[in-house]
């Protein structure tokens, strides 16, 4: 079936809405936004202080997003990447340049509602200047077939005194195969927080690698991952933090819940310190749902399944 551009736009926006995106924002002139389907930009809107330059490539889109120096962008920027067909390849090349003293919140949705054999690659290069605040939250929806291979890679540099918050969520539908690889270099007195929340089901295969280099004096970081695995899903979470500067503080916090006899969870926290005034800590909890939490909810009249749902929803919220 061949869709017109208008139909494509409507369908991808619908998928974006189903994945939790606010569809009102995509057409809103006050809000910077962009919708990309396969290798085509279907719509784009810039607002003052932000430039969004895009170019179609053979298999995807190359996008350069710049937030100008000193600009505080009032509304979150909405990005939607996706593919409607069941099969195909999409490669997104994303460069983000968040200049000194700017502030921006980006909300991205990656939607592949019908995927049976799709590969989605994202290569991101993110430069955050000094005294800037950058939040990036990415929510994925891959449909219910698990027929997708998603490979997001990012290299991030966080400047002095800057704040960087990254959230990755994939809690609806199936994951498919996910190979997530983020590396962050943190400057002096910067603050980095990386959060991943994933619900694996069926044969989902999840690998998360997050590496943080605390290179600037007084840099702080938190790597937080929350995974729930059902059926035969498997996951490996590698959270690495290197404390390389005086007064650098890092923490790795991984919680993986296995709700099923055949799911497999693995956590590999790597913490390393090369400066005697740096400190990096980690905690990992891997296992079944907490018994006391279950009993507490059951003592309020919930049955076992209801109690599990409440606990899982909270962890992935």
């Amino acid at each position: 079936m061949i869709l017109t551009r208008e139909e494509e736009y409507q369908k991808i926006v619908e998928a974006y809405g189903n994945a939790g995106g606010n569809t009102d924002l995509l057409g809103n002139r006050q809000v910077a936004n962009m919708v990309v389907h396969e290798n085509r930009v279907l719509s784009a809107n810039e607002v003052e202080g932000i430039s969004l330059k895009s170019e179609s490539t053979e298999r995807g889109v190359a996008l350069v997003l710049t937030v100008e120096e000193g600009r505080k962008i009032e509304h979150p920027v909405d990005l939607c990447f996706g593919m409607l067909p069941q099969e195909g390849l999409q490669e997104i090349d994303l460069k983000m340049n968040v200049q000194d003293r700017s502030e921006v919140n980006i909300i991205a949705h990656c939607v592949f509602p019908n995927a049976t054999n799709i590969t989605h690659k994202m290569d991101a290069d993110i430069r955050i200047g000094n005294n800037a605040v950058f939040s990036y939250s990415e929510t994925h929806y891959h449909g219910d077939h698990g027929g997708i291979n998603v490979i997001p890679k990012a290299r991030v540099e966080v400047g002095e005194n800057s704040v960087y918050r990254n959230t990755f969520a994939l809690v609806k539908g199936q994951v498919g195969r996910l190979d997530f690889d983020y590396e962050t270099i943190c400057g002096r007195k910067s603050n980095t927080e990386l959060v991943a929340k994933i619900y694996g089901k069926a044969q989902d295969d999840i690998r998360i690698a997050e590496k943080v280099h605390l290179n600037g004096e007084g840099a702080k970081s938190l790597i937080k991952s929350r995974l729930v695995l059902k059926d035969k899903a498997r996951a490996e979470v590698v959270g690495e933090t290197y404390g390389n500067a005086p007064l650098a503080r890092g923490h790795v916090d991984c919680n993986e819940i296995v709700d099923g006899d055949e799911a497999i969870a693995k956590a590999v926290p790597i913490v390393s310190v090369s400066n005697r005034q740096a400190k990096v800590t980690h905690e990992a909890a891997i296992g079944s749902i907490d018994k006391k939490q279950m009993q507490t909810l059951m003592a309020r009249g919930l049955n076992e399944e209801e109690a599990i749902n409440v606990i899982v929803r909270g962890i992935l919220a």
Partner: protein
Amino acid sequence: MLEVSQLCYNSNGQAIVDDLTLSIGKQEIHAIIGANGTGKTTLAYLVMGIYSPFTGSVFFEGEDITACSVSERAQKGITLAWQDPARFEGLKVGEYLKLSNKNGSRAIEDCLSMVGLLPSQFLNRSVDENLSGGERRRVELAAVLAMQPKLAILDEVDSGIDMASLPYIMQGVSAMKSQGSSVLLITHTKDALDIADRASLLCGGKVLQTGSPEEMSQWFGDHCVICNHINVPEEGSA
């Protein structure tokens, strides 16, 4: 309402609850007192169904519930406020209270107010590690109030509560009674004993004495060495 007969529970070969018999009437606040480690929380778990007794039985409203699960007992109207309540990441106080209040018969805001917590400040907090110990216990009591149970087992809901808030907790417990609930009130304080109808003293997993709060208040005096089973090293041990 609740009849516990000849309950025994062992752990690692040691009797923790030992031939314990106790009954609680309708709309009765029954305090349980006794030193640390005498089996009060274990009794609470046995009544809630978290532990199964080795021998003995639990009857509730004339029905043998000894073999019932925690959920089944809760559905019959029994609930428990834990001594050290669990924390829940990502679950808001408001949602937590709503879970307890399935029929929605009492406004959850009122339940928070009854334990002296401002709804505007607490409804959107998470029931996670960021609540203080006292706040978490008060939220737990609010959840019990929201459930309007027939029998509330309250395990030291008044411990670690600040002086200004303690009256709210006591009023909350008394309110349960006036609304028709029975309460098994595990406590170490005289304040809680004073709002009880009766009290039982536990020692070494047994009920040593049951009486009126006045009679039982003797155990809070200067001579609070409850009985010689407690804190006496076993023969032969160092």
